[in-house]
């Protein structure tokens, strides 16, 4: 209704119609008021298939305004298909500024990673979630999982983690590792590596989760306790990497394995491309970084 009228067909700002935005906004407010609880919402069809982040896109479309600066990452990278197309989508339908720099963004939409750089107050992290229900693979019936959440009956989840220990000697869950929010709701952090779980705890940013196909929205407000489930004798631990990033030499970051040849050659590089680039710009070098300095920023880099 506010779209410029110089062309014939125009979408509303940020694609969604206003009534849909109101419905999603109401769900977001309830989600913030009940941290970790999955609020049902009337998910819409989006111009992309389920599994490509329709939940996250609907959440972002409902909160974004003309002054926002958007960053989109897919497995930590700004330059993969999903991230590039969602960023282009919002440039087209909302004319917002985009960036690859975590610090410059007001909204970060993510698929399966949390940026390495700690988020700040006022930033919003929007997760794309495939299966929002942490108990779904243990109990397929929604009526039952809803009752389990209502009664705070999470014994089954501990049994699952215990079976890991019985079989493998340690908790073998490495991603979508269940967390308890503010001591009440058990929540699926989306398929982030468990390496990122500690970043959710007492984060300074607001975290919103959207599951389009499953039609659920949930949230973690800033400064909220997010504890990974564990046992006294098997405390929660994150992955450790033996070597630093091959490009920037960074330690204590999450690394991706890259196959170099068919002779078993491989390298480990930062999964968070922005973090890696910023370290290389600051002069850090890994053993495979080469002599010519850092590769030029990816084509869409920088605030536009």
């Amino acid at each position, binding site marked *: 209704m506010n779209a410029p009228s110089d062309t014939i067909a125009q979408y509303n700002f940020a694609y969604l119609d206003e009534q849909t935005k109101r419905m999603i906004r109401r769900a977001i407010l*309830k989600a*913030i008021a009940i941290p970790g609880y999955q609020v049902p919402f009337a998910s819409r069809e989006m111009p992309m298939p389920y599994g490509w982040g329709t939940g996250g896109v609907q959440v972002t479309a409902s909160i974004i305004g003309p002054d926002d600066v958007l960053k989109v990452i897919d497995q930590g990278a700004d330059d993969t298909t999903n991230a590039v197309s969602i960023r282009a989508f919002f440039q087209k339908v909302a004319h917002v500024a985009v960036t690859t720099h975590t610090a410059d963004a007001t909204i970060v939409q993510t698929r399966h990673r949390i940026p390495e750089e700690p988020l700040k107050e006022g930033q919003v992290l929007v997760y794309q979630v495939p299966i929002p229900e942490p108990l779904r693979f243990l109990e397929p019936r929604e009526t039952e999982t809803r009752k389990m959440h209502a009664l705070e009956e999470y014994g089954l989840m501990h049994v699952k983690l215990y079976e890991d220990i019985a079989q493998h000697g340690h908790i073998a869950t490495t991603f979508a590792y269940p967390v308890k929010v503010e001591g009440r709701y058990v929540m699926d952090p989306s398929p982030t590596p468990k390496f990122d779980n500690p970043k959710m705890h007492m984060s300074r940013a607001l975290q919103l989760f959207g599951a389009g196909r499953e039609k659920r929205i949930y949230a973690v*407000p800033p400064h909220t306790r997010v504890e990974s489930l564990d046992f006294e004798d098997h405390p929660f631990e994150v992955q450790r990497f033996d070597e630093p990033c091959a490009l920037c030499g960074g330690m204590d970051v999450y690394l991706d394995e890259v196959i170099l040849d068919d002779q078993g050659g491989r390298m480990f590089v930062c999964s968070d491309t922005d973090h890696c680039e910023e370290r290389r710009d600051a002069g850090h070098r890994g053993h495979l970084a080469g002599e010519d300095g850092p590769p030029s920023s990816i084509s869409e880099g920088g605030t536009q």
Partner: protein
Amino acid sequence: MAFDSIAIEGGFKNPVFDAQSMFRAVMQALAEPGTVHRGIALTRPPAPLTPEAAGVALTLCDQDTPVWLDPALRAEEAVGTWLAFHTGAPLANTPADAHFIFVADAENLIGLENFAQGTQEYPDRSATLVLQVKSLTGGAELVLEGPGIESRARLSPHPMPRHFARQWAQNRARFPRGIDIVLVSREGLAALPRTTRIVNQEGEPCM
């Protein structure tokens, strides 16, 4: 025809962007209880509905959300007509049916337990209270703790419903059921989600 023009005029100048700006203010207020936020609330509703409360109504209410008006707002017929024209929201017959509650006379508000609390399975099916207050400062100080608050937050709104600290403790005890409150005044808006605890200086729950 003066009555009709009162009902029709005074909505958002720019519905899409004004609603987005108002929503972000409400969202940040709920995410960080006790902090005061301002949205663009360029509404001119009939008194005693305030521009800020009307801005929240235009942002969040539509035909899916029955609203309940407190007696002070209901006494002025133009308020109901204005909300009906601009939002399409039906008026709830009883407080318990309403998704949004608009209150102009906070001191004489009926007990919080009269509003929809949600169910244990669906705690989101609860009411949001939009409370018009004269000021967010100068009243009895509420010391706040809970999600969204780093250590402690302070807010001194007035006037507030009678025995508010005790009523709020009961609301908190019903968690995950319960209502959420958005406080609106000329200074902006602040919120008390159901997770927020009111504590006195020693950190004990206020009774």
